[in-house]
């Protein structure tokens, strides 16, 4: 095991797959020599693998995604980067109509083994066009898989699984976790899709969430433990496939569920989890399922506003207390 940042672990995963499989290549805006990616995830890879395989593109999101589709169905394994998740709005046709549907509408004739890497989330004061959390759109798109790694030890295993997956994967990252450190195995490992991880065991209430909110939830759990409240924290790791079993088993144990993501509330991924759990564990619920999300507004710029927008420790703790 070596301690490294999420960014380093992700890069290591990309590097291993590129070494292992010649058909893996990266494409995106400013991922190469001159920049190394807006968040420096790919820094150094162009130097290592050359500009053919770490390919800078023009600012053409829909064609970046579409080119990944064309390459994927003809024998390559592209990892395309959309610099900010907000910009995937420009590539929705290729991601959601083409990549996601090709296997199906062609009756199984084609596989589309591609990865779209992008990054969601606020906290950097870069306002409405660079801070959104749009993973719900993709969870609502049959044919896509959706990975949401929140920890360094997961991101490496998940990116490797994503690259080897025969289906298109929306691989969502989060701006505030790139610098988070964790022990990461030295030997090769893959993390299967659809397996949640219980990040902390607890008995009184289950918290399910994604990305940076998991880090906050773990801190809240630590706090509440001092008061004798025992919080179980579950990280889904992938939204599609979604590990329902782990959530439901946990709820059957605790009888209480709080869902925490940074998405705007209405139809956030938390809505689906709430709907599933009330449907499948109705009799075990001792209290309504609580959702903690951002309010239904665009992401504001000013720190005072953005800090209010993003769920904080207090709101998470309050939601837990509300149903305990």
């Amino acid at each position, binding site marked *: 095991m070596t301690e490294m940042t999420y960014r380093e672990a992700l890069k290591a995963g990309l590097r291993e797959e590129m070494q292992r499989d010649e058909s893996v290549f990266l494409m995106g805006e400013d991922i190469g020599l001159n920049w190394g990616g807006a968040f420096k995830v790919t820094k150094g890879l162009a130097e290592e693998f050359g500009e053919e395989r770490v390919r800078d593109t023009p600012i053409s999101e829909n064609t970046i995604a579409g080119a990944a589709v*064309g390459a994927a*169905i*003809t024998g*390559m394994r592209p990892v395309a980067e959309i610099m900010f998740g907000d910009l995937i709005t420009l590539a929705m*046709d290729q991601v959601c109509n083409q990549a996601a549907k*090709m*296997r199906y509408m062609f009756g199984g*004739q084609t596989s589309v083994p591609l990865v779209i890497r992008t990054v969601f989330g606020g906290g950097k004061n870069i306002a409405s066009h660079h801070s959104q959390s749009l993973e719900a759109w993709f969870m609502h798109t049959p044919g896509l898989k959706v990975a949401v790694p929140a920890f360094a030890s997961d991101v490496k295993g998940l990116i490797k699984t994503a690259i080897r997956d*025969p289906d298109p994967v929306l691989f969502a990252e989060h701006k505030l976790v790139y610098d988070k450190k964790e022990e990461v195995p030295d030997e090769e490992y893959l993390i299967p899709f659809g397996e949640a991880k219980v990040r902390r065991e607890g008995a009184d209430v289950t918290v399910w969430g994604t990305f940076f909110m998991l880090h906050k939830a773990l801190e809240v759990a630590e706090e509440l433990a001092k008061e004798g409240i025992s919080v179980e924290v579950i990280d889904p790791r992938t939204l599609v496939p979604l590990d329902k079993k782990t959530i439901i088993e946990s709820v059957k144990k605790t009888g209480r569920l709080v869902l925490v993501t940074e998405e705007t509330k209405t139809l956030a991924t938390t809505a689906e989890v709430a709907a599933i759990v009330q449907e499948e564990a109705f009799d075990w619920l001792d209290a309504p399922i609580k959702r903690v999300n951002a309010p239904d507004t665009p992401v504001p710029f000013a720190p005072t506003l953005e800090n209010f927008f993003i769920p904080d420790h207090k709101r998470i703790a309050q939601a837990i207390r509300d149903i305990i």
Partner: protein
Amino acid sequence: MAVDKKKLIDLYTRTLKVRLFEEKVWELFGENIVPGTLHLYLGQEAVAAGVTAALKDSDWVQSTHRGHGHVIAKGADEKKALAELLGKATGSCKGKGGSMHITEFKKGVLGATGVVASGLPIAVGAALSCKMRGTKDVVACFFGDGASNNGTFGESLNMSAIWQLPVIWIVENNLYAMGTPIKLTCPSATIAERANGYCIPNTVVDGNNALEVYEATVEAVKRARQGGGPTLIECRTYRQRGHSRFDPAKYRPEDEAKEWLSENRDAVNVIRKIAIERSALTEKEADKIREKLQKQIDKAADFARNSEYPKPEDALEDVYAEAF
């Protein structure tokens, strides 16, 4: 260009086969057994024939919403193609795709698509893949005059140019996008000239003349295989019928339609005449070919008619490589 007799026969055969296929589709439509809508290729046969005659089996074509002609000309099995149009389990897409997604991947068709202009980015990616894998294969990408006004046009032409990809952009300019005459949405005399902005060699040919289309494509293919990058070929042509199944096409000026739909500009007549004039075929041989093709198509129609519909639950298959 010296075109040998065999190739002239090939051009005649391909053009005719697409014609007979589409006439059969129209007949089946009359029997009320073709679900959904249809965009017939009738009238434009010479484009698909001329382009595909210049390709190898391992080369690719990217199709459109008006795709029957492209896939048949590229060598798709007419039985599977007709079965697909009828929504049968024996269809090339198992009945999941239908007219707008008609595809036979193994025959080098990347896919037909219902989203206008969505094929261009996919062609970029396939061509990139050919280049990176060093196959020397090329990609011919069909799209309409209307598609040239979509954002992917500029993005994809540009990407193909900067990376000098082996792609041939085939504009099927049939003068209309649904009911909208291209004059109203394109300020220039040709669409081809837009390629100048991307330094892509381009030309305009008579799209009802398979030989002209073929010759232009051969040159483009040669350039592409040698690493000389993309070419754009604008093929001027005309639909025999309306845009889709119920469109009477009343918006077309009578004299324009009369001129374009006259006997001597008919795609089959044009190439038949050339083949006979150049002694590649006698009248009799030409008729023989027609008879043989007609039988083949009739048989295919029987196959399609007699095939089973997919089982309802099959709707759940082919979303992912493995269900979860």
